[in-house]
């Protein structure tokens, strides 16, 4: 068989490694074989390709020293930095919060792992915990690490030596330039060279190709030049309406912290592409980020009208139902996910919790056993934490204690487990131990209100009124509507005024 034909066949079947090997052989015979060269670049790109719309990694530097936002203190409901009003969302006492003060989502994407911490202090503290590692800037993030690793794994150096490439020559040849650009951008992660190539290429086609404009925007986005990215994308959209361009434009607006504009753009896109699920999901994500659960769930349901297999929508709606006191409805959604073939520790953990709270006790422990056997290191701690809750529910305090201990053994900065251990110790009457646990919880995640409040209540009973006052103030800061903390604070204020 013709080796080039075979290589193409491998490429179509996504057997990129075999395709690359074959192309390398062809190129050894004839180094000027353009077909083989293009195919090899495309195969190498395919190996590491991830959808650029979904990838979003925000480093500490971008986040804290962000000078793109217009106002430091924005009006409520217009910024993603402030958690928002919480319309239709369950209270913070029921649904756990992430560090940014938003309810935990039912679904994680590359950008949503950390959330935006509000202050420099928090931003620097956050990555200390082993499980939320955040790069200092996105320039040192995952992309670069992947790039260097792929370079190391090729023993005879990189396939294309970018420093020796004459970009002007390649830019004039559209058949080679597009593959080369994707190779530089995705495989080498060399944004600056990619930008140079894209700029030359768009010039050589007299600025008439929307594709190059979108690629330029991608480069600008990675380099943090958001306004330039916006201009390129708008120009691309006037030439050719594409879903991808809309998604990128919204990504730029989200980074510029203009969620309402982003929603507007999504809606413009929806007028052209009716029922496009990626656009609908985008709107839902933004509402979720602004803690506007009514709208978020509405749009997720819209997504399900068009695509009933949409994992993200199902997971987010299920999470919402669980935390608004309808575990049996959540159970239905999670079971649907299981039918669809999602099979991992997280899902079984959620199923177990839903079963327990929907009073289907026969399935609970089986689900958790499955979750334990499937879970990876990072989720194992959370699974044990939830089993601890089941144990608390059936009144088996010893088992609960052991479960929380195991949580801490698996992840030694699991603040929730420390807090619950403190509560259990207090029940046993070990005040000193309880204090130590509450303190550990307070230090590891200051955004939670429970340990602050517990510490305050305990200190109040022990007569240490000053530290009780301070802790209660921190609890109210973390959760402004917490009645018990406010009550305690009122009592203490009254007490102090009598002195």
């Amino acid at each position: 068989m013709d080796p080039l034909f075979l290589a193409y066949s491998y490429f179509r079947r996504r057997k990129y490694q075999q395709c690359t090997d074959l192309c390398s052989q062809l190129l050894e015979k004839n180094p000027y074989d353009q077909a083989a060269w293009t195919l090899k670049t495309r195969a190498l790109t395919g190996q590491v390709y991830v959808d650029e719309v979904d990838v979003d990694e925000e480093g500490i530097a971008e986040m804290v020293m962000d000078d793109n936002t217009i106002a430091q203190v924005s009006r409520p409901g217009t910024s993603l930095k402030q958690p928002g009003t919480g319309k239709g969302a369950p209270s913070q006492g029921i649904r756990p919060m992430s560090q940014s003060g938003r309810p935990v989502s039912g679904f994680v994407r590359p950008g949503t792992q950390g959330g935006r911490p509000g202050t420099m202090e928090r931003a620097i503290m956050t990555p200390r915990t082993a499980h939320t590692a955040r790069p200092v800037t996105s320039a040192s993030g995952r992309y670069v690490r992947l790039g260097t690793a792929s370079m190391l794994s090729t023993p005879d150096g990189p396939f294309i030596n970018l420093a020796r490439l004459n970009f002007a020559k390649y830019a004039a040849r559209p058949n080679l330039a597009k593959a080369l650009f994707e190779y530089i951008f995705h495989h080498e992660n060399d944004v600056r060279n990619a930008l140079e190539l894209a700029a030359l290429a768009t010039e050589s086609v007299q600025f008439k190709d929307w594709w190059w404009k979108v690629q330029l925007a991608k480069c600008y986005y990675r380099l943090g030049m958001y306004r330039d990215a916006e201009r390129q994308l708008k120009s691309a959209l006037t030439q050719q309406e594409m879903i991808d361009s809309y998604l990128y434009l919204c990504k730029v607006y989200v980074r510029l912290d203009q969620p309402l504009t982003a929603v507007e753009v999504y809606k413009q896109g929806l007028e052209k592409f009716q029922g496009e699920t990626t656009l609908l999901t985008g709107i839902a994500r933004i509402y979720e980020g602004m803690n506007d659960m009514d709208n978020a769930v509405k749009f997720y349901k819209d997504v399900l009208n068009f695509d009933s297999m949409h994992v993200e929508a199902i997971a987010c709606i299920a999470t919402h139902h669980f935390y608004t006191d309808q575990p049996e409805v959540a159970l239905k959604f999670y079971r649907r996910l299981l039918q669809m073939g999602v099979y991992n520790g997280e899902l079984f953990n959620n199923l177990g919790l839903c079963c327990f709270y929907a009073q289907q006790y026969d399935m609970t422990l089986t689900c958790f056993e499955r979750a334990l056997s499937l879970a990876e290191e990072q989720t194992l701690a959370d699974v044990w934490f939830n089993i601890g809750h089941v144990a608390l529910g059936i009144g088996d305090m010893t088992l609960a204690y052991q479960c929380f201990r195991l949580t801490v053994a698996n992840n030694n900065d699991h603040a929730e487990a420390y807090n619950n251990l403190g509560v259990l110790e207090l029940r046993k009457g070990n005040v000193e131990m309880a204090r130590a646990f509450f303190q550990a919880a307070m230090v590891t995640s200051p955004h939670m209100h429970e340990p602050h409040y517990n510490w305050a209540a305990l200190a109040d009973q022990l007569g240490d009124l000053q530290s009780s006052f301070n802790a209660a103030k921190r609890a109210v800061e973390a959760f402004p509507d917490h009645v018990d903390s406010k009550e305690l604070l009122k009592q203490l204020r009254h007490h102090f005024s009598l002195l």
Partner: protein
Amino acid sequence: MPESKDQIKEILPKQGLLYQEDMPTVVLCKPKLLPLKSVTLEKLEKMQKEAQETVRQQEKDAQNQQLDWFS
């Protein structure tokens, strides 16, 4: 979904003999549903793991070669 507008208000009896004691109790952290991972995230993590593996393997090979060379 619970409607936030017409929530039922609690009725607190104000007449007659009434004994009320509010004990401040400590609170537990709530159970946590785990978020599912998106396909992109899973792919990124897989790629990262594989890349680390290859690099580690290469380093090991290089070490072994050095050892062979010395002995």
